[in-house]
């Protein structure tokens, strides 16, 4: 919305700040001037950005009232007509026929129309506007239509109340404000035809609908160049009714904008008089008969006759706190300023029976003011937010950490230190991905208004996002990727959505073979190592990696279920070749998803220092051939089963297979195994070590191993 500073100043003869200062002061009080543009006439165009709750300030007079309040200067009454009308000729109120009866008006839908005023003007000449109105419309970018219609628009720009002019000679009988008949048709001013419902409100005559009330006038009753006689309408319509009507018909007009946010019921008569004056000044003619004014008492109770609000000075000061102004008692907003501001805004204050309180009557143009807090806000706003001090509340109570904060930190920092970078992906995924990646037995929840077809579901797993991010990196030629995401996943149904935190790891590229792990398996084992490291920070039952009950996204034989005790913590493995091909992923990729509630059910390990042994550790290596069917878990279990407390370490050092079957027969592998023995109590004796060595060899032979030279 645009405002002309010169127009504004016509209401504020005593204002003595320049336009730029005015713009800044208004902005600091919530009447935001977004742009100030110099005009050739020496004034400025203010580009306003006013919050929707302040619909009363979306016009020149409303902003003038704000300025008058801020500066404490007098605000002229609109009736003083020092505005557009004055420049067009000094026209007096049509008093001659005031006693005669006005145009008949009937309100048949009092729940939708709270007030309707009508005034007949006869003998007008409708042409194009000229002079000041045309000039100001040009400055404001307001489209001129005809001198009669432009007066209504000028009045709307001046005071914000929408009005309408009818060609009186198209009317058949009384004005009737009623609900539309179901299926009733009307052609509107923009030329569109609308089919109405009984929830639409129309201004009609005895025979037909004339216009869609509060939204747009009708085509057939519009004022044209041949119009000789006019009926001026200024009315008040219910907010909800106009909002619904405007939405229903896709019509957002200046009138509907105001009515649906709350117009001023108290301003109808004034608006009608001002428009009547304007029409006579611009188009000639004369007012005939009195102005009809029909008011619905129930509507008055909601607007002009609202109950007063109790305002306590103590509550104002208690809530707003300390000011920076010196000389104000106790550095709180003083009562005389509270009175001054609220009165300037149009409130009436009188002392209430409660000490230190006012009974405040609210202005009819400020339907946004309803409660004590609304008045407190007005005081703070006009006083100026930046004139309050910066204080800090005293501290009471302790700082509570979230129950899982330390666990979450541990997971993130462990992964980062292992080279995994954190990513964040979309909360949504396609139906296809949801079905493919959801954990066994879980269902995904559909969205009602998805962002796109590919985002139709709440993600039941972080894996769709992870797979997508790997593909993005792959297509951008990133050689190796290690990503993790810590986020929320959603399962259940549209009746009840279950949320839980989840962790995914996703990787491809750059995994090197070691002496125990072949290059083709290295990526998986790097992932497994990361998962083991994360879990190792928690006090869990022994963790195993099992090949059974795997989800469908894992390539057969290339992944595992992570189990602690009896609880599944998650899954990891290579994405199936079929899915990789479907996604056009060039690389072998590995993915993991951990169910964090299952992991977080366990406590974090607390460090506990043990005295390192003072006695020497002894290493013994063993070299065996095993059939491929013997796993490391078998070896590990067999040796741990020996129950040698002094065997403090047991690890594969080298694993070798020979595809040609020369050094190692096919179907077998050689294992170099390293054990370390150490006692907390004494230096190990040669005979002890020899005995353990023999037990180890015996156990490995029992597994079917063939002993090679150590």
């Amino acid at each position, binding site marked *: 919305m645009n405002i002309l500073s010169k127009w504004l100043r016509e209401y504020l003869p005593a204002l003595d700040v320049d336009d730029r200062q005015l713009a800044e002061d208004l902005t*600091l*009080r*919530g009447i*935001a001037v977004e742009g100030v543009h110099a005009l050739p006439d020496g004034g400025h165009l203010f580009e306003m950005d006013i*919050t929707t*709750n*302040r619909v009363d300030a979306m016009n020149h007079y409303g902003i003038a009232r704000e300025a008058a309040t801020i500066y404490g200067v007098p605000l002229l009454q609109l009736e003083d007509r020092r505005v557009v009308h004055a420049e067009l000729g000094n026209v007096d109120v049509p008093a001659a026929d005031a006693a005669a009866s006005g145009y008949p008006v009937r309100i048949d839908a009092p729940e939708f129309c709270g007030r309707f005023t009508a005034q007949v003007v006869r003998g007008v000449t409708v042409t194009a506007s000229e002079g000041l109105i045309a000039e100001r419309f040009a400055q404001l970018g307001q489209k001129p239509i005809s001198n009669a219609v432009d007066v209504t628009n000028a009045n709307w720009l001046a005071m914000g109340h929408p009005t309408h002019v009818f060609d009186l000679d198209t009317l058949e009988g009384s004005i009737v404000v009623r609900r539309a008949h179901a299926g009733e048709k009307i052609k509107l001013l923009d030329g569109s035809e609308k089919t109405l419902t009984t929830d639409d409100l129309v201004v009609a005559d005895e025979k037909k609908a004339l216009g869609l009330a509060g939204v747009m006038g009708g085509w057939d009753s519009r004022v044209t160049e041949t119009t000789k006689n006019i009926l001026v309408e200024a009315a008040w319509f219910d907010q909800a009714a106009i909002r619904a009507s405007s939405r229903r018909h896709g019509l957002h007009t200046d009138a509907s904008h105001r009515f649906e946010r709350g117009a001023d019921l108290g301003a109808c008569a004034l608006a009608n008089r001002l428009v009547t004056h304007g029409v006579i000044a611009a188009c000639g003619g004369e007012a005939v008969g009195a102005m009809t004014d029909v008011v619905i008492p129930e509507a008055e109770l909601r607007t002009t006759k609202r109950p007063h609000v109790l305002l306590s000075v103590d*509550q104002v000061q*208690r*809530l*707003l*706190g*300390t*000011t920076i102004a010196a000389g104000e008692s106790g550095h709180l907003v003083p009562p005389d300023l509270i009175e001054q501001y609220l009165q300037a805004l149009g409130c009436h204050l009188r002392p209430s029976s409660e000490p230190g309180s006012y009974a405040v009557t609210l202005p009819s143009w400020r339907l946004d003011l309803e*409660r004590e807090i609304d008045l*407190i*806000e007005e005081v*703070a*706003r006009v006083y100026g*937010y*930046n004139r*309050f*001090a*910066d*204080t*800090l*509340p005293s*501290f*009471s*109570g*302790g*700082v509570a*950490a979230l129950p899982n904060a330390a666990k979450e930190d541990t997971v*993130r920092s462990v992964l*980062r*230190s292992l*080279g*995994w*970078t*954190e*990513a*964040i*992906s*979309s*909360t949504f995924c396609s139906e296809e991905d949801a079905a493919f990646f959801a954990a066994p037995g879980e269902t995904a*929840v559909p*969205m*009602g*208004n*998805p*962002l796109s077809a590919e985002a139709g579901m*709440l993600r039941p797993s972080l894996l769709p996002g992870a797979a997508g*991010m790997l593909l993005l*990196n792959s297509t951008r030629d*990133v050689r190796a990727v290690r*990503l*993790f995401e810590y986020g*929320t996943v*959603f399962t259940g149904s*549209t009746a009840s959505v279950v949320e839980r935190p989840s962790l995914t790891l996703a990787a491809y590229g750059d995994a090197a073979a070691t002496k125990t792990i072949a290059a083709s398996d290295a990526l998986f084992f790097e992932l497994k190592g990361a998962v083991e490291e994360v879990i190792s920070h928690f006090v869990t039952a022994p963790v195993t990696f099992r090949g059974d009950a795997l989800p469908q996204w894992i390539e057969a034989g290339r992944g595992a279920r992570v189990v602690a005790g009896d609880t599944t913590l998650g899954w990891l493995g290579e994405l199936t070749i079929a899915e990789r091909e479907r996604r056009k992923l060039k690389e072998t990729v590995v993915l993991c998803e951990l169910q964090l509630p299952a992991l977080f059910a366990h406590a974090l390990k607390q460090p506990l220092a043990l005295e390192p042994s003072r006695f020497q550790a002894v290493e013994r290596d063993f070299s065996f051939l095993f059939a491929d069917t013997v796993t490391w878990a078998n070896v590990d279990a067999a040796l741990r089963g020996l129950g040698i407390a002094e065997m403090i370490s047991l690890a594969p050092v080298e694993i070798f297979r020979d595809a040609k079957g020369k050094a190692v027969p096919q179907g077998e592998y050689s294992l170099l195994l390293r054990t370390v023995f150490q006692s907390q109590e004494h230096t190990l004796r040669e005979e002890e070590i020899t005995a353990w060595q023999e037990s180890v060899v015996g156990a490995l032979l029992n597994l079917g191993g063939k002993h090679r030279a150590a």
Partner: protein
Amino acid sequence: MTDTIASLSAYDDASLDQAFRGLTDEVRGAAAQLSTAETQENFRLDWLGRKQGRLKLLSESWLKTAPPEAKKSLGMRFNALKNEIEAALAVEPAGTKSTGPSIDLSLPGIRRNIGLEHPLTRTMREMTAVFAALGYSVGVGPEVESDFYNFEALNFPPNHPARDTQDTLVVADQDTKPLRERLLMRTHTSPVQIRSMIESAPPLRIVIPGKVHRNDESDATHSPIFHQVEGLCVDTNITFSDLKGTLDYAMKAFFGSSVKTRFFPSFFPFTEPSADVQISCPFCGQKGCRKCKYSGWIELLGCGMVDPAVFAAVDARRIENGLEPAYDTKKISGFAFGMGVERIAMMKYGVGDIGQFYSGDLRFLSQFV
């Protein structure tokens, strides 16, 4: 070098001084010659060698045979001599012997890649830490919320446009439920404020980082997925000036002590009075730059005093849940504030396209060291 040690004949100070003066001279003479690591090592072995070192031999032939009353003065002189030797050894010889050909110092070191924190996580962590220092606990809540927590209790009227599916992402099949039970993607982290107040009586100080969603078109600065950090402080007699002071402090802590704040009236359903907060541009010191659109100021926060209607909704639910009402607006007041994490991270790190945060593009993410 002497292998045999002359025995001492007398233990008076003069005799001892004389005997030790000769040794000290010898040490100093040898020390002056120590130019290489090798000569230094030989000197060390000669004097301090464990088995054949002269100090050891001296100690055996002199100290052990000395009468008890002379041992103290002998010991003192031994220590002085030993200090002299050690001081000579402490000096680095000029050309230290090297163990191989010199290395190419310019080759890159062996580095393990470390993973990096996401810039949004980092921004949320840093912002949260500022408020933790002011006594705020961290609060979290669900991302799928009911209308009650996301709108109703926050004083959004039933016909408020924010509820429209053009603005809010909703879960499918909600139309048959009562309005307040309908499920949607939370549009702000404010529902956590409601949940916290229903759960706990004041005093309450929480800071709420989290992911939120709106039905927005994506462009360089807008994303339907984004993050917020919100805060809530409720106690007896919390004032608007407390809100100002808290946010002024927080912005200085986060952006630097020279940052200034200014407050403008604004409108939010759940706060009154409400304010938008601008900070003086920390990137150009208010000289004007692209980040502040050459205005010297950046709008960063929305905030306000908790609306009494919010407290009323909280107390109503507390009563339904069998709890005592605890938010009497005659005694209790509070403030709330919120900021967009992406916007702050974009400014701070110079990110041009918001979509990069959610791309998983390692080339982007690996910059946030």
